[in-house]
């Protein structure tokens, strides 16, 4: 049960939703609610007003614009595989989204909600960072775009302002060799550690999952990775600050990351 009461609004348009956000200082967007409702139940968060954006059809489209696929923020995880362009050009996204939570969660959860939540253990956020994606944000004054790397600030903290709504997520298509590695303890569980890779020219971009207080992005030169693995790994290690918990020590998380990178290199020998 949720103890705190709130006002609930279900606007039909983005304009109406943005108006509602600016009406009160303590508003929160609810998309699929698969992370937000559990947090509210635990009493970790509460709001005066919830703005449900599930009726805004403009947020449910998928389109190709220039060299990007632009996915509306309210596209659900289970819907991604229904778009040919995602199946053919972003299969890594489907691979990852099809492992989020469980079927019930994927029937509700949305790509925008997952990106906005900013959980350091989010596989989708790791993909978003590795693929050098960006978010398109809208407020009453206009639209701005933030790169994935700049979007994540800290534990459940993002660059999304209180008066803004994520309109869409953009993924570039100029990458190769995207791979996803993850170790978790149980079915439907978060990653103890995870890695998404994407190759851009002579660089390998890494999305690091559960390796710090938020999703981390690091880019390494492919030649450095293959020729000087240890020193390159040290440079990756230096940006990580994983926690130690009942599932793993910091060192075990680093060990997994090392195994993931070796796995990538074995699969893609130079």
């Amino acid at each position, binding site marked *: *049960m*949720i*103890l*705190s*009461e*709130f*006002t*609930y609004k*279900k606007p039909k348009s983005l304009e109406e939703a943005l108006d509602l956000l600016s009406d009160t200082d303590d508003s929160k967007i*609810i998309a699929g*609610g*698969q992370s937000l*409702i*559990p947090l509210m*139940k*635990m009493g970790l968060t509460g709001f005066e007003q*919830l703005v*449900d954006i*599930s009726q805004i059809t403009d947020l449910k489209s998928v389109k190709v614009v220039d060299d990007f696929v632009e996915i509306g923020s309210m596209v659900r995880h*289970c819907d991604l595989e229904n778009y040919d362009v995602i199946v053919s050009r972003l299969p890594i996204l489907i691979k990852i989204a099809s492992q989020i*939570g*469980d*079927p*019930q*969660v994927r*029937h*509700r959860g949305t790509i925008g909600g997952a990106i906005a939540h900013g959980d350091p253990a989010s596989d989708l956020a790791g993909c978003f960072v590795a693929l050098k994606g960006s978010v398109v944000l809208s407020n009453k004054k206009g639209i701005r775009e933030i790169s994935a790397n700049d979007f994540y600030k800290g534990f459940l903290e993002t660059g999304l302002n209180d008066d803004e709504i994520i309109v869409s997520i953009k993924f570039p298509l100029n990458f190769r060799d995207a791979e996803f590695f993850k170790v978790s303890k149980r*079915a*439907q569980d978060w990653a103890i550690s995870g890695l998404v890779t994407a190759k851009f020219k002579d660089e390998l971009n890494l999305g690091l999952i559960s390796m710090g207080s938020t999703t981390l992005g690091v880019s390494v030169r492919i030649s450095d990775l293959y020729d000087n693995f240890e020193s390159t790994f040290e440079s990756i290690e230096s940006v990580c600050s994983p926690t130690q918990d009942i599932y793993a020590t910091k060192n075990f998380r680093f060990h997994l990351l090392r195994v993931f990178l070796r796995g990538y290199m074995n699969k893609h020998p130079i």
Partner: protein
Amino acid sequence: MKVSIVINQQRYDTEVASNMLLVDFIRDVAKLKATNVGCDTTTCGACTILLNGESVKSCTILAVQADGADIVTLEGLYTGDGTLHPVVQAFGRSHGLQCGFCTSGMVMAAVSLLSSVADGQVLTEDEIRNGLEGNLCRCTGYQNIVNAVKLAQDLLIAGDNIIS
């Protein structure tokens, strides 16, 4: 807030608090008690129902979010003509339950899983296990549950039944 929710083909028009969960609406307003609250943390799946034909955890949806939705609970699988739904039959014949607490959620998850299968496709055991990932059975009766879903699939293919 006023909501209008159809559960098992019956419409409920009523006033609810914004913080009421859908599972509480189903159990306390519609008085349908098959849907259980297990963990109340989006983990166990005992509260699984069909919302517009798809499995969801009703403990993680607000009743107000379900305004206008079409919901089916375990009770809704019974047509009233004395025959059981093929998935329910299969759970009985395969002894796909021990204490029964997870069963309504397991059955609804299985109904959703089997209805999502394309024509002519047959789910493998791995696919069935993955499809039931969101449902926990603390009696550890998974083997018979998987057997039940396999049998339900066979019954549906043989009987050319359409699950609604």
